[in-house]
């Protein structure tokens, strides 16, 4: 006890309650300056006609938002973004689940395969984009060559150069990159299910599919939904893949909200309108997060 007294006497200057806040201060400052302030400043800018070319900074009320509502390019990007989010999240969850079910069985080289699955995730997205640009190249791409030689297609497809197939190519690249990672997340969920449950069901004569539907899937559902939620929120922000692979083209067929906003900000330098797009995007993402979270809590409550 005596030692404790010594230590308190040695540091009389700061009261005890202040220490935790002092340790949290750098984090608060960093997130405040780089995350929260820009959101508010973006909201403020969206009410102005700020332009880095003309130098104007006047308040214009809601006119940017009025313009946004009737801007065909915005709705085009909005639809693409939602479409991409739904399809890629759905495919990644399904394929990830399939991979996870394989991985939770015992077989040789399982460690090697699990390690290999981290490769797509660890690779820079810019490299992934370039890699798929080469794989799916319209002239010398190896995908076209394989499809041609196996007789699936009759002539080369100009994958990401054709408005018909460009979005599909981007979705394929994204699913390639993210599905294995999803599988690893789901695998930890599957492995936390006690094997005694599945063993007991097998003893009772239940088949593989029965075990999956009645035991594994219900118990995995919380993990599945949370992983899906995080993935959807992440997919909604997609930028790197689109920017590098197609730049939003051809004919705006792959334009997403992030690439549209980037062009508005850094090509035309119309920061007033650009921040209107990003603020609308932030609101959509926040609504998406709240709705998905509520639905998730509801579903998990109902199941468990």
């Amino acid at each position: 006890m005596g030692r404790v007294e010594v230590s308190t006497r040695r540091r009389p200057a700061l009261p005890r309650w202040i220490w935790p806040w002092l340790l949290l201060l750098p984090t608060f400052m960093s997130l405040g300056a780089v995350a929260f302030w820009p959101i508010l400043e973006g909201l403020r800018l969206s009410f102005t006609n700020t332009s880095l070319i003309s130098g104007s900074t006047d308040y214009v009320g809601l006119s940017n938002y009025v313009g946004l509502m009737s801007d065909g390019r915005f709705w085009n990007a909005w639809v693409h973004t939602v479409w991409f989010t739904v399809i890629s999240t759905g495919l990644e969850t399904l394929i990830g689940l399939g991979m996870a079910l394989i991985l939770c069985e015992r077989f040789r080289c399982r460690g090697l395969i699990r390690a290999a699955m981290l490769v797509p995730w660890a690779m820079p997205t810019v490299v992934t984009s370039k890699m798929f640009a080469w794989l799916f190249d319209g002239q010398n791409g190896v995908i076209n060559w394989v499809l041609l030689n196996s007789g699936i297609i009759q002539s080369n497809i100009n994958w990401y150069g054709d408005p018909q197939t460009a979005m599909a190519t981007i979705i394929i690249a994204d699913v390639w990159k993210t599905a294995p990672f999803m599988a690893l997340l789901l695998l930890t969920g599957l492995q936390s299910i006690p094997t005694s449950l599945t063993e007991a069901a097998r003893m009772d004569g239940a088949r593989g599919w029965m075990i999956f539907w009645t035991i594994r899937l219900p118990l995995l559902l919380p993990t599945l939904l949370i992983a899906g939620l995080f993935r959807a929120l992440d997919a909604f922000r997609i930028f790197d893949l689109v920017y590098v692979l197609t730049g939003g083209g051809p004919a705006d067929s792959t334009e997403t909200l992030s690439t549209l906003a980037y062009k508005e900000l850094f090509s035309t330098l119309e920061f007033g309108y650009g921040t209107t797009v990003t603020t609308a995007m932030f609101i959509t993402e926040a609504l998406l997060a709240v709705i998905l979270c509520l639905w998730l809590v509801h579903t998990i409550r109902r199941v468990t």
Partner: protein
Amino acid sequence: MTQSSSQAMLRRGVIYLGALLILVWSASPFLWQFSTAFQLDRALTSGTPSLIPDPFTLEHFRNVFVSKQLQYYILNSMIVSLTTTFLCLAIGSLAAFALSRLNVKGRYGILMVILSVSMFPQITLVGPLYIAAATLGMLDTYTALILVYIALVLPLVTWVLYGYFETLPREIDEAGRMDGLHAIGIYWFIILPMSMPSLVTTGLLAFITAWNEFLFALAFTSNIDHQTIPVGIAGFTNLYYVPWGDIAAASVIVTAPLILLVLVFQRHIIEGLTQGGIKE
């Protein structure tokens, strides 16, 4: 009724086929990129792709360093990513320690707010931050990128470290306090040394995030003095054709170290990420 042995065989077969498919899925695109890096442009455009380079060439690696000057991008990326990693570990571990070990009112609220930041669309932040950086004369500096990256990585770092600190028994804090250690002393002499495995994993995650980041690097830097690797590779174009071989060589150079790190630390990475993202 028990499963007949032919059914069991079929089951094994399906599992091994599935495993093979997963391996092909994960490894084959990069394998092709790897092979491309060692092939001549004329072989790449010949119409019949071959996995084994024939003739074998290092020309693309020479191009990447001599004419594209990849070494400068690598240097920039190293400086930015390593600084981000160390500062992030320092700041994040202090926050995680305070949240886990000290009496903080509303700690779960704070954790949720920190987590929510990781879901903000980055494009929403880039405009105002660009104006701020321009006003402060910080465009084309490492500092601006590092300051942004710290905030981008902090939520993950804080969450993973918080999760790890929570698993350390509280009795050791008590013991430290008995020995007259202050809060900072407990952090420095007890918690940090015990958390080395988690610090390594978290640091690796922070490093990979900073190394791969594209949007802010694209917006904030305009020349080779400060541009990072993703911006460099995205800008790889020749006048009359796409230099697929050069791009592949650069991809191999910047991805190979990541793959090695990931293979070495794979178990820890998966654990760390599930802690931060999925389990509570």
